[in-house]
């Protein structure tokens, strides 16, 4: 299963490091990353492969949300299909 991770918040030291180490702990592979500063906000998207993930989706979501709180950013994970079905035929 592929999922899209979005990280939005105030730019700070260690956001990418924090997020990617949490993903590694969860056995989640990063397939693609884009990161930019949009309207003054740190904005990062990752495409993730969850096929070898250690936990179920709900637990992954919670672990990432907790991590986001620690890093002072908002982290969301959603299955990829919601984006592809809305924007492509």
């Amino acid at each position, binding site marked *: 299963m592929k999922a*899209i991770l*979005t990280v939005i918040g105030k730019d700070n030291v260690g956001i990418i490091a924090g997020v990617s180490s949490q993903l590694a702990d969860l056995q989640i592979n990063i397939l693609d990353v*884009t990161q*930019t500063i*949009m309207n003054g906000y740190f*904005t990062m*998207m990752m*495409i993730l492969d969850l096929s070898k993930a250690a936990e179920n*989706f*709900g637990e992954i*979501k919670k672990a990432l949300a907790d991590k986001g709180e620690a890093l002072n950013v908002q982290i*969301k*994970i*959603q*299955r*990829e*299909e*919601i*984006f*592809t*079905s*809305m*924007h492509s035929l």
Partner: protein
Amino acid sequence: METTQILETIRMIEEEKLDIRTITMGISLLDCIESDGTKARKKIYDKITRLAENLVKTGEDIENEFGIPIIHKRISVTPIALVAGASEDENYTAYAETLDKAAKETGVNFIGGFSALVQKGYTTGDQRLIQSIPEALRTTELVCSSVNVGSTRTGINMDAVGEMGRIIRKTAELTADRQGLGCAKLVVFANAVEDNPFMAGAFHGVGEADCVLNVGVSGPGVVKRALEKVKGERFDIVSETIKKIAFKITRMGQLVGHEASSRLGVPFGIVDLSLAPTPAVGDSVARILEEMGLESCGTHGTTAALALLNDAVKKGGVMACSHVGGLSGAFIPVSEDAGMIEAVEAGSLNLEKLEAMTAVCSVGLDMIAVPGDTPAETISAMIADEAAIGVINNKTTAVRVIPAPGKKVGDNVEFGGLLGRAPVMAVNNHSSANFISRGGRIPAPIHSFKN
């Protein structure tokens, strides 16, 4: 996948209140028919709780994984008049209580199908069901009831129209302690559809499979926001903008419907392409019409604005999913739409204008509070007018009015939650009693003979 597209989707869900309004499991109860009512009700309870056991959990799982809210999980069943008709029971309230119990067991928030289809005539079962409606809506919480009194093929059953005025009055009286709440769960239709996922009018038609899953989408806030970006542009641009956004909204419905049906092992029925408002700020159909350039919903131009909106939503949505059905269009319930409530209070929107609006959108006079002393014949005549609009224009129309006990024009009826707040609206005080007392049938229109 582009960053801007990902962010657009997230913004639509978080800020503009895009959601899946309902996933509704339609369940046929035709195989539960028994001459012994007690046995029939046991079969009904067992079948509903078996098939819908995982409906709520599956909805919540999808919500969690895809990050899109699914507001309601609901059940619709075969019109109970058909199921109970074979039994010797004379009052069908016990069937409504069984549905209520099954709904509570499965965790859904409404169950629809305490219904009768009498567009041409009554069976004994239909008669008994209609007579049981006030008591059934008093004793149950989650059961919704509907009666179809007319169709383009058959005309309008004016005996049923007359009777439903009295039933609505009685339902309001029996639920007077809850401000007539029972009437919020009772819809009178013309041209009712068999696969409508929305309450209170959902039932599972006899032409449907044993069990199907239908989806209703929503998103008035998303349409409003899209139109804010084309302020002052010509209507061609307005229409194109609505079509594009309706496409995106509907794709969500298609995705969620397919996912839910495959997880539940139930065939996917249809997506209902509707813009369904809620009382929440930013979730209003009236605000879309106002965004098109009207100072207040209800003023001159409102019917044209709604016609454009309704048509563009359908055109955009049709290509986005495999099967379209249900009511499909814009809903204009007064109490459930903050912009409509405001327009009524500002004196800009009245019943006559709402009636005109129902000629060009997908439903009818919906969630409207009228004075508690409104005569039953006047309510019947409102139903007759709406049915005539539906029958002549080959579309679904409906009436869901609440003659709020003890209330008069200018008062408010507070239902709370998604049913919202209804300002009591003025009705025409001249009598329709002699018109309604005629009874009989208004014949089908000439253009119904297409064979």
